[in-house]
């Protein structure tokens, strides 16, 4: 069997299942869009300090990040935790499918979700908030890709510490919400503030900053090596941790 072909089929079935489960799509798509409409319309037209973006435009980028994290980290962590607990992972492991095809299918499906999200959110930004089409589109794409890799890796890693499916929402969101909250997703942080110094240790703020810079006009490629580097360090650590500790069997067994 051709692994790539199998992975492609897996993407198709992952997508089928994903869109039939409305709960998974709520945080990825509904929340960013609703937040964008509510906050964007009331954010006024002043600029976010240190950027050329207005508050409503910043919110567009921040909601893209929020949705990306929901699509990669939250959805992947929840899906894998549930599947492990119900024995789906164990069953798959007894079939001829390769690990690469299986996770390739999951992550390919996540890629599609992020692409849809990006088009919708940026489309709303451009249509209603005068967000300019990214000045550095390649930088936006590459930054999104690094973000996807990082938060997929973190989603896989967190499944290692999820004890069972019942505890999955608490563990997954318990880690995610505080970090998202202090990282300037809902309101821009001022540089040098205590909160921003804490947030600088985590990948969320770096993804926002790197995307903001890639959307803004400015000299150079628009790529933020420092921000991407921090994300990639997190990604590498998460992948090593996952590779060493990942479990296929339900933990209660």
């Amino acid at each position, binding site marked *: *069997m051709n692994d790539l072909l*199998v992975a492609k*089929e*897996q993407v198709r*079935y992952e997508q*089928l*299942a*994903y869109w*039939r*489960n409305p709960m998974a799509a709520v945080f990825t798509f509904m929340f960013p869009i609703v937040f964008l409409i509510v906050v964007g319309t009331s954010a006024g037209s002043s600029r976010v300090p240190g950027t050329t973006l207005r508050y409503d435009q910043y919110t567009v980028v921040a909601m893209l990040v929020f949705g990306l994290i929901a699509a990669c980290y939250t959805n992947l962590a929840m899906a894998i935790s549930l*599947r492990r607990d*119900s*024995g*789906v992972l*164990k*069953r798959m*492991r*007894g*079939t*001829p*499918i*390769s690990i690469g095809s299986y996770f390739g299918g999951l992550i390919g499906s996540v890629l599609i979700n992020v692409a849809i999200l990006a088009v919708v959110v940026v489309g709303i930004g451009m249509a209603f908030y005068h967000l300019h089409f990214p000045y550095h589109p390649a930088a936006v794409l590459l930054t999104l890709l690094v973000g996807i890799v990082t938060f997929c890796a973190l989603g896989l890693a967190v499944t290692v510490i999820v004890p069972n499916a019942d505890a999955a929402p608490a563990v997954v969101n318990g880690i995610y919400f505080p970090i998202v909250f202090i990282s300037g997703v809902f309101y821009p942080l001022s540089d040098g503030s205590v909160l921003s110094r804490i947030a600088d240790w985590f990948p969320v703020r770096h993804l926002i900053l790197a995307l903001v810079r890639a959307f803004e006009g400015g000299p150079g490629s628009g790529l933020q090596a420092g921000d991407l580097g921090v994300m990639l360090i997190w990604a590498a650590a998460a992948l090593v941790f996952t590779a060493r500790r990942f479990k296929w*069997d*339900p933990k209660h067994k």
Partner: protein
Amino acid sequence: MADSGGDLAIAVEGLTKSYGSFVAVGGIDFEVRRGEVMALLGPNGAGKTTSVEILEGYRKRDAGRVSVLGVDPERRPRSLRVKVGIVLQECAVDPYLTVAEAVTQRAGLYPSPRPVGEVVELVGLEEKARSRVKTLSGGQQRRLDLGLALVGDPELIFLDEPTTGFDPSARREAWDVVRGLCAEGRTVVLTTHYMDEAQALADTVVVIAAGRVVASGSPDTLGGRDHGETTVRFVLPAGCGIGDLPLPAGLAPVTRGEFVEFRIAEPTAVLHTLTGWAVGRGEPLEGLAVNRPTLEDVYLSLTDSQDRPDSQDRVEDRGAGPRAAPADDPAAAGTGAAGTEPGPAR
């Protein structure tokens, strides 16, 4: 490619597995021939699941030699995985796919799968083919699980308690599916708690207790069952004492309530005398039952006579139950306590 194991689908020698200081499997040996149904029996915690999961490639052994279709399953080579179908105890299918989608998806993982429609029909889910898995009943999900294990056209199928929770007719249908697999020359390894299931399906039974094989053989001869004593039981006719019965010396009849019963190696002559006597008196022998030890009797005496003081009584009770007149429906008696069981079903 290694040789594929010859006549043997599975060969296990000196298999051991411990978890910390707990010895789950303490050195077991058994073989499964190709085309055979092997039932692995044993109490919970006896090492059944550990043994099967080592054969399936889910666990690593500590020591011993294991060959599955001529290959060591520990390395989980894909060449082996395409030939093996596994049904675990948990139903494990994405709840948001339909039955047909789930089977099609699984079929796509194998080099020469069976047609999807054929598999759906085989497990009796034609009418549910377009329903989402989450809407299926528990029994239907188990049947889908079985279908998913069969879609790759496996040579060897592992079934872990495949009919637990089935109603009697669904169990019969599942048994027919297993018999069909054997008729096609496939090998089946089955774990079960139902002795009637082992009796109906298995060519060979291996009983494991406390990590060791305590008996193996055909269900009809296991543990000397074919040589075991027959129990004869009937209601003591009114006005008679035990001493009035025309029984040969040496028998030790006992009374249990209104019943009298005795055990005898070869009951033909005694029954002839006894029934002739009753006919001569013009009265029937109420509740007459003649029972060979059931597989369950043998199993219980093999597995828990040491750790359960009351087990001997239970064995006797079950072997000589008043309802155990020649029964021909093992499924109707879920405990397997029916008296006369059908022979090997195939």
